[in-house]
C-alpha cells in the first residue's frame, strides 16, 4: 500500500462511502462511518440523507460530528424529532442502509461492542466496551448493514464473546426470521486491508476485495477461521485525488481519523474552529 499518499483509515472511509447510493436514507454511527457518509454526500451521493439516533433527519453536513447529539448533527436538518420516533421509523423500514463499527465480528457477521471477556466473563470482563448504543437496533431492523472495523488478530473470530448486534446469528437458514428480526442482515465488512461480503446461500463471510498492495495470504492469517475467498478476487482501485480531498475536507482537523495525535497538533481551539468553518462549504 502506498503509505505516503493516503492512510489506511482514509482508504477505509472511501471504500465505505461507495456503499451509499444517491437518494438513500442512511443511519450512520459516529466516527469513520460518519466521515464516509459525509464524503459520499460531497462526492457521488449529494442527496444522501443521514439520520441520527438523537432525532436528527437529513442535516446538511457542514461539519463532522463527535457525538450523535452534537448540534452539528442538526445543522440545517430537514426534520428534528425524537429518538424514539427515529427508532420507530427504522423499525417500519424507512431506512435503506446502516453503517456501524464493532470491536469483534464473527463469520456470520454478528458483532460485539459490549465486552471482551478474555479469560473472564460478562460481569467482570477484560475490556468493557461502550455497549449497543443504537448498534443492535441498526443490525436488527435495517435492510442493508455495512460494518467497519480494522483487520487485526482477535477482531475476526470464530465466535464473538457477546453478540451485541445480530448478523446471521448461528448461520442456519431463516435464523433471523425465526428470531423475529425484520432487517435482512449485513452485506459488507469494510476493513483497512480488504472488503468482505456474505455468501447468499451459506450466509458466511468471504473475502471479496483486497486493497492495493495487500496480499490475500496476509488477510487470511488475520482471520480466526478458514475464510473463503471469492472465485474472482477483486483488487480495489487506488483512491483518486479528488476522493482523498473529499475525505480530508470532511474531517479537516483530522480529529476523527487522527485521534489524540491530531488533537495535540492543533495550536488552539480557535484553530480548530477556523478549520471547521473554512471547510464547511458555508462561509
Amino acid at each position: 500500500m502506498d503509505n505516503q499518499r493516503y492512510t489506511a483509515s482514509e482508504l477505509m472511509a472511501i471504500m465505505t462511502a461507495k456503499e451509499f447510493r444517491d437518494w438513500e436514507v442512511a443511519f450512520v454511527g459516529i466516527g469513520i462511518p460518519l466521515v464516509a457518509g459525509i464524503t459520499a454526500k460531497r462526492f457521488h451521493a449529494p442527496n444522501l440523507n443521514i439520520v441520527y439516533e438523537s432525532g436528527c433527519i437529513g442535516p446538511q453536513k457542514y461539519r463532522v460530528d463527535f457525538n450523535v447529539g452534537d448540534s452539528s448533527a442538526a445543522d440545517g436538518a430537514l426534520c428534528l424529532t425524537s429518538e424514539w420516533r427515529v427508532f420507530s421509523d427504522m423499525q417500519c423500514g424507512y431506512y435503506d442502509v446502516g453503517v456501524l463499527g464493532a470491536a469483534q465480528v464473527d463469520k456470520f457477521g454478528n458483532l460485539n461492542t459490549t465486552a471482551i471477556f478474555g479469560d473472564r466473563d460478562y460481569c467482570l470482563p477484560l475490556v468493557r466496551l461502550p455497549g449497543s448504543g443504537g448498534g443492535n437496533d441498526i443490525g436488527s431492523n435495517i435492510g442493508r448493514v455495512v460494518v467497519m472495523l480494522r483487520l487485526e488478530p482477535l477482531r475476526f473470530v470464530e465466535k464473538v464473546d457477546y453478540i451485541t448486534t445480530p448478523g446471521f446469528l448461528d448461520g442456519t437458514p431463516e435464523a433471523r426470521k425465526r428470531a423475529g428480526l425484520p432487517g435482512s442482515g449485513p452485506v459488507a465488512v469494510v476493513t483497512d486491508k480488504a472488503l468482505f461480503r456474505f455468501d447468499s446461500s451459506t450466509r458466511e463471510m468471504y473475502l471479496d476485495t483486497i486493497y492495493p498492495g495487500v496480499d490475500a495470504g496476509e488477510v487470511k492469517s488475520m482471520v480466526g477461521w478458514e475464510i473463503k475467498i471469492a472465485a474472482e478476487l477483486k483488487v480495489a482501485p487506488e483512491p483518486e485525488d479528488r476522493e482523498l480531498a473529499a475525505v480530508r475536507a470532511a474531517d479537516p482537523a483530522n480529529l476523527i481519523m487522527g485521534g489524540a495525535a491530531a488533537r495535540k497538533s492543533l495550536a488552539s481551539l480557535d484553530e480548530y474552529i477556523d478549520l471547521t468553518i473554512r471547510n464547511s462549504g458555508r462561509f
Partner: protein
Amino acid sequence: MTENNTGNKQMTLKDAIGKFVKDGCSITFGGFIGRDCVAAVHEIIRQGIKELTVIDDSKTDMMDLLVGAGVVKRWEGAYLGYGAIGLAPNIRRSVEEGIPSKIEVEDWSNAGVSMRYLAGSLNVPFMATRSMLGTDIIKYNRRIKVINDPFEGEPVALVPAAHPDVAVIHVQRADAMGNAQVWGFTGNDENKARAARHTIITCEEMVSTDEIRRRGNMTLIPFYCVDAVVQVPYGCHPQSCYGYYAYDVLFCGDYHQAAKDREEFMRWLDRYVFTSKDHAAYCEKVGWGRLQSLMTMERHFNRIPG
C-alpha cells in the same frame, strides 16, 4: 409529576438537586450526548450523593464523571463510551477493576431504552420492540421478555416501563412555571419528563410566559411535568447546546487523557468540581473567552429565531 403548580418553580441548582436527588434514588438525564445536563452532574457529585441507579440511553462525560466519583450503584442503559474519542476510562476502571466501586450493569439497546420511556410516559406496564431479539443482550438481561405476539404469532421483545425518581433535563429556554422549550433534536426527553416522579429543568435562558406562548410548538415539556426550573448558562459544556455553543472537542480530549489515570482524574474532579462552588466558577476556570468562541462557532451554523 409536580406537587407544586404555583407560578414560580425557579430555584438554585444547589437547592433543586438537594431537594429531589436523594441517596439511593433512581435518575435519568435528558439530552443525547449533546444538550447534556453536565452542570447538574457536577452538583450531584459536589453534594456527595451516593448509590444512584441511572436509567438512561446514551451518555459520555456525564456517566464517566458520575462513575469515577463513586456516585453510581447501578446502570441500566445502552451506551457507556466516550464518543468518537474512545472508551470511557472511569467506566472501564469500575467494571473491570472495581475502582472506585463496581457498578451493576444491565445492557439494553437505545431503541429498547426508548421503548421503556415511551411505556413510562404512556402509563402502561411495557412496550414491544423488534430490537435485541436473538442476541446476548436478552441472554444476560432477564427483564426483556420474548413472547409470541398474541395476534400474529411472531416473536417480539417486551421491555418494562421506566419510572425513575428524578429526571434532569437541560433545555434552551423555560419560564418560571416550568414550560420547557427545545430546539434541535429532542432525544427521549418528553417521555423521560413524563415517566419520572420529579423533573428538574435546567436552561440556558429564562423567558416570560408570554414569550413561551408565542411559540407553543417548541414547548417539549409542559409545566405540569416540572418541579424545579434552574437557569444554568453553559450548563452543557463541554457538550454542545444547539443554537448556543458547539462541542468542545479539545477540552474532552484533555479530559479523556487525564481520566485514564485515577490520580489525575481525582485532580481534575478537585479542580473543576469540588473547588468550584457553582457552575459559574467552573465556567471561570474553563475560560469565558473559550466559551464565547464555542458560541461564535455554533452561531455560524445555527441560530434560535428571535
